[in-house]
């Protein structure tokens, strides 16, 4: 009998399809509608740091250089109060085979798919992860399909995403280019069912354990060269895997560095809107992913998301599109590193964050990404102008997502907006109880919610009270 490919029928089969495509049983870790054994899942199904290192060594991933940004540090000190301005170090993740830290995530997923005998791997992503999976799949002799959200209904796509399609095709992957919409997931499910490929989800324990080495390495490198740990590790935050994996690695290396997430503020633009799609001049690293994935991680393409950023974020800060383009230009012009742009979100935040710290402290910016035609400030800003977005030189506060990109007039204007993490924690707890439709929450569940939001049982209980839910 032919498969029923209607939207509702395929979505109804999602549990079964995902299970087959991941070869992973989540049931044993799920304790209730709200709680699950996160650490148990990571330990039992992920790979240890030693295993990941071995896997990554064999696929040319990791051990990227940690570069000291001497001139940018100097500019930070020139714009800080006397004695302040921490040293800024940059982990040059663009040195990975396909040009971003996403190779770390892909390497473990592809290794696992190969070990389990899958004929190929599928990734649903418009980001660097597609190229990473395609590149790793080639090394492992596996087939590869990448499903991307590329165009609006006029068949217009951002140059940055077109470049990401090209790169996947350069590796010989099959690229499915779609118009805007969350049904990308539906298309992926159909393809997984049809091909029997492995779901190289960004959110599986394999993918996240692959990022842990990044946190581990940056601590080891900082210690070896400077004899101390970073005060801050600044991480570009989108879906949550970068924050989660890096933070876990930093902690496993025994460092107490503050984990600070940074996103581009795109408040007001709807991620699934056909109209708003090309009003964004950033395709990742922004609040459109950063906020929903932090406040409800299990919206992902796996039964339980291994990327749980609220567990690890000490702070979360926002910067503007104009600031990121400015620092991308600065990185090329005074440090001789043409990288980004989206990966430089954390660098933009790190500059203002470094001003908070004395000169002898260290701030690590934990990624860069490759740049190229389309994936470049010039191409993205030109595209923005052609889509009616005004580009000016002015203070960051003049930025209006989708309407105005203000490129700072001076280095001293670089700043950030602090996000109230308690508000995000509150929103997470609200999502957890409304989605599971419970009227009462057990002690076990309160404990889980406190861990999952890096808060306390008292905090969770106080939020539940406001929601009229008994604890």
């Amino acid at each position, binding site marked *: 009998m032919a498969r029923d490919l209607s939207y509702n029928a395929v979505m109804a089969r999602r549990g079964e399809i995902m299970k087959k495509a991941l070869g992973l049983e989540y049931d044993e870790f799920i304790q209730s509608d709200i709680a699950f054994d996160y650490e148990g899942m990571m330990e039992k199904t992920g790979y240890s740091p030693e295993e990941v290192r071995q896997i990554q060594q064999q696929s040319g991933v990791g051990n990227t250089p940690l570069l000291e940004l001497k001139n940018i540090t100097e500019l930070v000190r020139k714009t800080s109060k006397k004695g302040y301005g921490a040293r800024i170090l940059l982990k040059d993740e663009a040195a990975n085979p396909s040009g971003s830290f996403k190779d770390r995530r892909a390497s473990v997923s592809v290794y696992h798919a190969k070990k389990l005998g899958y004929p190929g791997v599928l990734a649903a992503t418009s980001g660097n992860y597609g190229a990473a999976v395609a590149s790793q799949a080639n090394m492992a002799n596996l*087939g590869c399909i990448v499903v991307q959200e590329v165009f609006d*209904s006029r068949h217009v796509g951002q140059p940055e995403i*077109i470049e990401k399609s090209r790169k996947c095709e350069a590796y010989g992957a099959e690229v499915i280019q779609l118009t805007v*919409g*969350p*049904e990308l997931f539906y298309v992926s499910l159909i393809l997984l069912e049809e091909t029997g490929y492995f779901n190289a989800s960004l959110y599986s324990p394999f993918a996240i354990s692959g990022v842990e080495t990044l946190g581990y390495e940056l601590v080891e490198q900082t210690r070896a060269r400077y004899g101390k740990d970073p005060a801050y590790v600044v991480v570009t935050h989108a879906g949550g895997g970068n924050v989660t994996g890096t933070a876990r690695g930093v902690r496993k290396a025994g460092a107490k560095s503050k984990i600070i997430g940074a996103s581009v503020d795109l408040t007001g633009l*709807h991620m699934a809107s056909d109209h708003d799609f090309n009003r964004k001049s950033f395709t990742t690293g922004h609040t459109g992913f950063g906020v929903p994935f932090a406040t409800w991680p299990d919206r992902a393409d796996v039964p339980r998301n291994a990327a749980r950023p609220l567990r690890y974020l000490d702070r979360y800060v926002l910067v503007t599109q104009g600031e990121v383009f400015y620092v991308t230009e*600065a990185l090329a012009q*005074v440090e001789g590193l043409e990288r980004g742009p989206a990966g430089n979100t954390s660098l933009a935040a790190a500059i203002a964050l470094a001003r908070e710290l004395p000169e002898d402290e260290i701030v690590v910016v934990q990624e860069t990404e490759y740049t190229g035609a389309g994936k470049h400030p010039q191409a993205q800003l030109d595209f923005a102008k052609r889509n009616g977005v005004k580009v000016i*030189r002015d203070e960051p506060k003049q930025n209006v997502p989708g309407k105005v990109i203000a490129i700072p007039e001076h280095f001293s204007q670089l700043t950030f907006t602090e996000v109230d993490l308690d508000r995000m924690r509150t929103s997470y707890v609200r999502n957890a109880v409304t989605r599971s439709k419970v009227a009462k929450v057990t002690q076990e569940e309160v404990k889980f919610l406190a861990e999952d939001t890096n808060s306390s049982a008292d905090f969770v209980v106080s939020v539940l009270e406001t929601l009229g839910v008994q604890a």
Partner: protein
Amino acid sequence: MSNTCKKGEWVEIHYVVLTPEERSPDVPEDTKKVPLECWIKGWALTDGTVGEPVEIRTPANRTVKGTLTRVNPGYTHSFGPSVPELLYIGQELRAMLKEDE
């Protein structure tokens, strides 16, 4: 660009995945008005003409049917023209680095 393809040539096809009525109930109003569309590249299984149906073999070895849109599809994305708002940043920062404390 040629308007026709020969069997075995690298082409791009297009098809509608979901009509507006078939889309997810969760999409915003503007997106709900338009179909979910798809473009895939592969090798033509027969000769074809742009605008007409054709079948392809994809890189992942699937057979997919759609409307032929491009023959030997390439890329036209670029670095774009110079952006004046970025052009002076390098000079400004170098000047700052030369200033005394």
